[in-house]
């Protein structure tokens, strides 16, 4: 437990020291959405219609952008070998790293999201649901992304490859998150979609740290 | 059951059915050709490499 706390503090300290990284992710998120607004023109109804989808796609890409540095620096300077050999189970270490990644990228995205709801003219009645989907969905991005990030360690063109591997697996998250907003506008309630997102979160929480740890062991072997 | 003409023409759906079979042929035969090509190339390279090993004394 003490070892875990030490890792947590180290990760958080490192993330804080590189807080420009988090800021850049949020900036990318906002700029990507704004680009869409320029791309389709400022017609409010049109923006409202595509708003939830655009915001989610931008969040997905922004999370991907920050993903490849999750294990890269540890891999480069040899820390990763220490973590693999450490008495703390690698699966737990991975969980801590994912948690910190989410705190430094997922959470800022959620905080920035209401600003984008205003800019994209998203109907106020789906704001809470959209926030719930982001709250349930962004941890899934971090979890599944970590598997990809561990797999591409040491690969050529790791960043692009990471997107190719991970984005298809994230399609269901995108579909049900955006579907939740539509379901509310339909008057059906978003319960089913949110339950599915919750199921995806639990399933990826069960499987992703294990797969990531295996991939990390292979990477330093 | 149906005369050959109507089968070959597939009535109004020929434009959908024939491309399916054509695509299947192209993809499946293409994969065979590329696999056999790869096999042939690798075999030639391997034979060459084995000859070189024999020629170079230890």
């Amino acid at each position, binding site marked *: 437990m003490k070892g875990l706390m030490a890792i947590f503090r180290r990760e958080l300290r490192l993330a804080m020291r590189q807080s420009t990284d988090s800021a850049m992710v949020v900036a990318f998120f906002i700029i990507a959405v704004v680009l869409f607004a320029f791309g389709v023109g400022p017609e409010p109804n049109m923006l409202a219609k595509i708003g939830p989808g655009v915001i989610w796609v931008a969040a997905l890409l922004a999370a991907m952008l920050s993903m490849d540095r999750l294990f890269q620096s540890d891999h480069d300077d040899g820390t990763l070998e220490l973590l693999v050999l450490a008495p703390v*189970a690698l*699966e737990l270490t991975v969980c801590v790293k994912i948690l910190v990644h989410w705190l430094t990228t997922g959470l800022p995205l959620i905080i920035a999201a209401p600003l984008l709801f205003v800019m994209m003219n998203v109907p106020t009645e789906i704001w809470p649901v959209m926030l719930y989907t982001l709250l349930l969905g962004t941890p899934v991005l971090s979890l599944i992304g970590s598997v990809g990030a561990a797999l591409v360690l040491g690969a050529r063109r790791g960043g692009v490859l990471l997107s190719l591997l991970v984005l298809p697996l994230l399609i269901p998250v995108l579909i049900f998150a955006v*579907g939740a907003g539509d379901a509310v*506008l*339909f*008057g*059906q309630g978003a*319960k*089913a*979609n949110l*339950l*599915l997102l*919750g*199921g*995806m*979160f*639990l*399933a990826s*929480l*069960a*499987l992703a740290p*294990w797969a990531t740890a295996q991939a990390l062991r292979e990477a330093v072997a | *059951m149906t005369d050959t003409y109507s089968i070959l023409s597939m009535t109004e*759906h020929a434009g959908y059915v024939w491309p399916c079979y054509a695509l299947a042929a192209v993809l499946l035969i293409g994969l065979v050709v590329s696999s056999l090509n790869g096999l042939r190339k690798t075999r030639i390279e391997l034979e060459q490499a084995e000859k070189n090993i024999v020629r170079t004394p230890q």
Partner: protein
Amino acid sequence: MKRKHKRLTFVIIALLLLGGAAALVLSAFEENIVFFMSPTDVAADKVPHDRRFRLGGLVEEGSVDRSAGKTVTFRITDLSNSVNVSYTGILPDLFREGQGVVSEGKMVGNLFVADEVLAKHDENYMPPEVADALKKSGQWKGNAK
């Protein structure tokens, strides 16, 4: 020994999480996520008025009217309620009376104005002679005409 215990704990936690995930997903299916709405939903006023949605059901027997040029009107039914639909454009080949369809469009008053009609087909495959024979002998169970 300690290592083994640790591993066992992990496996149990993972199984609990997976069980939770399965429970959530299964209860989500009970909520019935729909690819389309039914005419009963329309009758119960459960559909939005100013937004596009999908309406699914069977094409009611004898309701297809092609008299108005390119615009076709028909009724979609789920055998308890039905909705009037109008559509302008090319219908898919499987579109016929008694056949399942999914159409996308908006409600305009009591009329569903579709801008897309998709035909849904069932998992039965048979030659036309067999279908005729089945219908003649009264063993026909499908809904298609």
